[in-house]
């Protein structure tokens, strides 16, 4: 069913900071939908509005055709898995799971069988009488999920449910979450700042930034065809080029782009941009091939010549920063063969980068600030992990308010 959960014009401010800005969103029944964005982008606030812990300043939330905007949290057919799990420390695992059913006034025998089923589902039968302080992080997380889904909510909200777990456990829980979703068939609305998590789990993703939705789509759509510099840079890595459209190919399918200091570049034009338009081009590093000898020229193929400025060995691939004129271009070279038999390019080597015109895309929106999300080395010895997030400031302010 389409439009199972609909946000209409939702806005929310904390003091002077507008955290969610006139936001519209629609989620289908039964899907795993995730809100992805850096901390402070408003995704958690949106989730809390959905659960009823915050009231929007304006806008409506409609769940299954019913307006739930003004319903208190305890009357909504919605349950939440909290980021820190929020298990009741004074109740055993069993009693934690039974909490919602008891409130509903369900018969004791029925509660027992429901709780048993839930414990079975999360494979924690033998832990029923343990207390939250006695079980591990992953187990707590499963209890939190069980506690929510025994109530058979129409919608399950998950607030960074895997953030507190270590990498290996996170991957395991990801698969389990998927299985649980298949089994119970509830709609999942999932909030995360981890692109890997949302990519692997979601049917659809809404990328959020600064209180707005940047793009909604399937994981592949979001990755392969980002509409904005933010989506392109936040999900995966990319190269940005700035230039003007010089001309179009005969069938108008491709544009020839003029970029300062580089040869003309051919790029697929799906947005019917016209000549002379100022555009930004995004190019994923893994779409680039790198060669030590000049490749043969082909139709619709772009070739850039440059000098290797930096390279980092990453195990399954090597990342190169290549200086092409004024541009520093990132390229990823997967290791398909036994690496030690080859002589891959090293610092100061002359190399050629080439890619097909279909593999670049012109962005609809570009903000210079998004470049801080990219891995650009300051110099040869800079640390290459980007940990700067543009929304950081808002997160801090949100926390204070």
């Amino acid at each position, binding site marked *: 069913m389409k439009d199972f959960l609909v946000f209409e014009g939702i806005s929310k401010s904390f003091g002077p900071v507008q955290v969610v800005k006139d936001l519209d969103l629609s989620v289908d029944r039964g899907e795993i939908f995730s809100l992805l964005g850096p901390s402070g982008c408003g995704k958690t606030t949106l989730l809390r509005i959905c659960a009823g812990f915050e009231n929007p300043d304006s806008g409506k939330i409609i769940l299954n055709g019913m307006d739930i905007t003004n319903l208190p949290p305890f*009357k909504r057919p*919605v349950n939440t898995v909290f980021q820190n799990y*929020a298990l009741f420390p004074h109740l055993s695992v069993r009693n934690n799971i039974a909490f919602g059913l008891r409130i509903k006034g369900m018969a004791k025998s029925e509660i027992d069988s429901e709780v048993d089923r839930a414990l079975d589902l999360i494979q924690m039968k033998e832990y029923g009488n343990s207390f939250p302080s006695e079980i591990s992080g992953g187990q707590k997380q499963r209890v939190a999920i069980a506690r929510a889904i025994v*109530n058979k909510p129409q919608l399950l909200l998950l607030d960074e449910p895997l953030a507190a777990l270590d990498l290996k456990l996170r991957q395991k829980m990801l698969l389990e979450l998927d299985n649980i979703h298949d089994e119970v068939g509830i709609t999942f609305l999932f909030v995360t700042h981890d692109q890997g998590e949302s990519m692997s789990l979601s049917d659809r993703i809404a990328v959020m930034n600064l209180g707005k939705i940047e793009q909604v789509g399937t994981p592949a759509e979001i990755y392969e065809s980002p509409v904005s510099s933010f989506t392109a840079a936040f999900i995966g890595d990319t190269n940005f080029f700035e230039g003007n459209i010089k001309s179009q190919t005969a069938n108008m399918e491709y544009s020839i782009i003029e970029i300062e200091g580089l040869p003309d570049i051919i790029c697929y034009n799906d947005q019917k941009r016209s000549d002379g338009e100022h555009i930004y081009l995004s190019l994923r590093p893994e779409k680039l091939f790198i060669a030590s000898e000049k490749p043969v020229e082909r139709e619709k193929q772009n070739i850039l010549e440059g000098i290797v400025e930096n390279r980092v060995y990453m195990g399954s691939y090597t990342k190169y920063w290549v200086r092409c004129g004024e541009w520093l271009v990132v390229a990823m070279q997967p290791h398909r063969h036994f690496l030690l038999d080859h002589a891959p390019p090293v610092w100061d080597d002359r190399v050629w980068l080439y890619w097909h015109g279909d593999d670049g895309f012109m962005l609809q929106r570009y903000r210079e600030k998004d470049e801080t999300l990219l891995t650009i080395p300051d110099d040869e010895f800079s640390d290459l992990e980007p940990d700067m997030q543009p929304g950081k400031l808002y997160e801090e302010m949100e926390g204070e308010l």
Partner: protein
Amino acid sequence: MKTGRYIFPRIMLVTTLLFIYMPLLILMINSFNGSRFSTVWGGFSLKWYVKLFHDRNIRRALVNTVIVAASSVAVSTVLGTLAGVVLVRYKSVLQKIHHIFITLPLIVPDILMGISLLLFFIAAGFRLSLGTIIIGHITFSISYVAATVQARFQDFDFSVVEAAQDLGADNFRVFYKIYIPLLSPGIISGAMLALTLSLDDFVITFFTAGPGSSTLPIQIYSMIRFGTPPVINALSTIFICITFMIVLIYQRSKRSLYR
């Protein structure tokens, strides 16, 4: 050796502990001393204990102490818990004033509180009695209970409240299913604190007590000034033992709370 560097602080720690226990130990040993004089060992004897149990003044003071403690703990625990909860839950001008009211009694010395209550009772025409003592004890206990309950809130995970609401609990259910059980350790230790303060207080009691309403500390005071020291030794020993027992039990019960 790594420990060598911390040798001075450790010596200070051990010395301090000795310093704290030495007078009490001497007191306890002396309570079994047959001689009146602490420097002469007159053989092991329980005669001071026997004397203690036949002292009618002490028995009456004990009853008074229990009445004062029970009523002041009951009232101040309720008032203090309420105060602690509202101080955390609401942030308004009213709470700022409330907060000042709660904090001031914590820093004002006993003697000031004692004399101000005494002058108040005289001005208001109250007859000094057990009742005025109880009022005094409630007044200084409220702040301590409130502070303890507030401290309990400090590591209180408010997402648990949201979780309960999320699972369908209305405000009333949140209160008795979440707040009360989770705050109960704070409320209990607040009440325990109020109890020890009430049992311990001398100065404020002394100022607000009327004739015939002496409590145990006042009785001990008059014994120190005018009475028979070895009986106090016996009484003190019993006091110390009871205190240690209460602490031990409390410690045990605290440990088993969340397992």
